[in-house]
């Protein structure tokens, strides 16, 4: 496979995953912005959404003040914001077009029709009640693409590089969401047990679509350390850091055996997985949740970088 192809497939998956994550983030933020909040500016919640999305600075440079309409427009439709859903879908489709030969017809048609339909949405004429539907539609389209991929693609390097993109992006996303909100999860916070806290916790879980499954797993009300445990260490939770690294590690293993050679990225991924496997949430809280997440994000970036080096993404 061409190095350029591997690079494009990897980023194609990352952008699809990013678009889906962005839809969840907006959904969770929108919900919080609807809650009554005594004395506080309810738009304040959008700050964490923008920070989780990694584009707070660009937003403020463009719009200055926070308001729901501008934030939603910026995260959903603004082509000049490289993390917007518009930009993610456009880049994903451009990559797909460049790699038509590596994609199955089902994958291409799913992605292409998403893009064509997305372009027919006119943001200016959008009524507020259309937003949930659009966000659902984006998650649906991302799921359709993943479904086409899982059902039709050959289990060779095409598949492996696509999987790596998905799970590296997902791990990064979950870690960022947690890190932006880590102070809400700390026991020292002044608002312990308040309704606001509960809403904040639920927002975190919602942004990774885990507010329902949490109760099935823990059979308990929201507890901050359990939420952290769930999103960081739980193997069953498909968006947890542990689950993502399970996929990344085994995918890199498969790639090593396909190519007959193990690269440094496989070792880094394995040690990251081990870290999550033997970690327990009390220790993580004691030594600093924020520090742990920062360290994880850096490791995740290192794995990504090592993959691109090992497999000649930019040769």
């Amino acid at each position, binding site marked *: 496979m*061409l190095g*350029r*192809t*591997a690079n494009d497939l990897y980023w194609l998956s990352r952008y699809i995953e990013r678009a889906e994550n962005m839809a969840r983030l907006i959904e969770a933020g929108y919900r919080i912005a609807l809650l009554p909040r005594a004395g506080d500016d309810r738009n304040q919640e959008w700050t964490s959404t923008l920070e989780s999305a990694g584009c707070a600075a660009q937003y403020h440079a463009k719009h200055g003040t926070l308001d729901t309409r501008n934030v939603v427009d910026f995260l959903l439709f603004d082509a000049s914001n490289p993390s917007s859903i518009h930009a993610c879908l456009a880049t994903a489709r*451009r990559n797909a077009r460049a790699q038509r030969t590596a994609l199955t017809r089902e994958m291409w048609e799913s992605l*292409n029709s998403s893009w064509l339909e997305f372009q027919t949405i006119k943001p200016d004429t959008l009524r507020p009640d259309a937003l949930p539907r659009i966000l659902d539609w984006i998650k649906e389209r991302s799921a359709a693409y993943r479904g086409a991929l899982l059902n039709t693609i050959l289990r060779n390097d095409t598949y492996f590089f696509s999987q790596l993109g998905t799970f590296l992006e997902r791990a990064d996303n979950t870690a960022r969401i947690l890190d932006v909100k880590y102070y809400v999860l700390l026991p020292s916070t002044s608002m312990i047990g308040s309704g606001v806290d509960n809403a904040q916790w639920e927002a975190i879980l919602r942004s990774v679509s885990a507010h329902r499954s949490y109760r099935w797993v823990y059979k308990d009300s929201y507890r901050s350390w359990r939420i952290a445990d769930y999103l960081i260490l739980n193997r069953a939770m498909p968006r947890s850091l542990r689950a993502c690294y399970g996929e990344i590690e085994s995918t890199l293993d498969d790639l090593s055996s396909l190519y007959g050679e193990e690269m440094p990225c496989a070792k880094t991924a394995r040690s990251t997985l081990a870290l999550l496997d033997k970690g327990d949430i009390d220790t993580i809280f004691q030594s600093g949740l924020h520090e742990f997440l920062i360290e994880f994000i850096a490791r995740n970036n290192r794995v990504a970088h090592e993959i691109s080096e090992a*497999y*000649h993404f930019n040769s």
Partner: protein
Amino acid sequence: MNGLGQGVREPYAAVSAWLDTMRVEDLRKKSAEAELLFRRTGITFAVYGDAEAAERLIPFDMIPRIISAAEWRRLSTGIEQRVKALNAFMYDIYHRQEIIKAGRIPAELVIQNSAFVPEMIGVEPELGIYSHIIGIDIVRTAENEFYVLEDNTRTPSGVSYMLENRETMMHMFPNLFAENRVAPVETYPDNLRKTLESVAPHRLDTDPVIAVLTPGIYNSAYFEHAFLADQMGVELVEGSDLVVMDGYLNMKTTQGLCRVDVLYRRVDDAFLDPLTFDPSSMLGVPGLFDVYRAGNVTIVNAPGAGIADDKAIYSYIPEIIEFYMGRPPILKNVPTHNCRKPDALKYVLENMAELVVKEVHGSGGYGMLVGPAATKEEIETFRARVKANPDNYIAQPTLALSTCPTLVEDGIAPRHLDLRPFVLIGDEVRLVPGGLTRVALRKGSLVVNSSQGGGTKDTWVLQD
């Protein structure tokens, strides 16, 4: 479809009966459905100068164009004779130039031709073949009367439309195929692969590695490049994916460099190798031509193959066929007036209103005058241009091109057609029964090019 006499010609009988059962509204609905299918599949061509917004569809007309088995047999023998002669001509031109020495073709027409690539002199391409993929544009003017309009010996495009049009028709009207014995065209990608493998450098002791070279996603024919690579199961590469190392051509893969033995390039000669040709080219591979000359890679079609489809050479093709094949041509050329000859120039200037005048190096329907359809002013402008630079023009009589029923704004009406079969030349000549039928959608128009508002149809060759 109706021919010159009355009534429906025999090969069209079944389709004509089917058309009678369809209402125009139904056809329009189906047509919209087909368009959606094409758009979803991304069978588009890019329009230059505009990035994402300008992916356009070539209009597809659902009423098939039909050729009988007997007609096809005649056509295919003629085509085979023609492509063999063209390759023999190219071999000769880049070697001993016997045809020039024999005085059958003027030396300056070849040597001073911009499509002649002097770097190719003395190069020995695998099996002596220069043009492995040729698209021949053919029109029909009467029962059993076919003319070759032009030969495309460089990088002919459109074969993906031949295949996708068939795919779409079978998807939308499966019963039509149950009722008619339509020869399949799906073997084309397999034939292409076999052809490319057969011309791999002969010293090879492993299976040849094939790649398709594209200028990239903004090229107007990008869809076709990706389509063919995909159908053959070979890599689609851009210039930046390739590098010359130790005398071989390599592509940069996830596991390091990998040798490429056959390069099916869809990049023009000038851009192939900045060291040998256009030094500003970003699309090619520095050093590629040296690898080629050393016989370590096969370039398909060979550089310099354009010499055989030059419009000024075209008028000599009947003599070229006689010279190399020892027999008169089976397929006729359109009588062509080469304005470089004084008496031909005189004739052209006097009869411009009846002629089609073309630039020697023009293509895509640009830079041409269709006399009978042109205004007085247009004719005068063209007359001045021809006078100023006669060598640059040829002229041909306006042919009465055949028509086929086509869905247009006011219902079903006859529209003019041409046909481009795609021939593959390697260890043998391979020709799938069919081709790309292009249709001029404007009433009375004879220009079928997609850049000039032409559409396409599925082409059926019937089996006995």
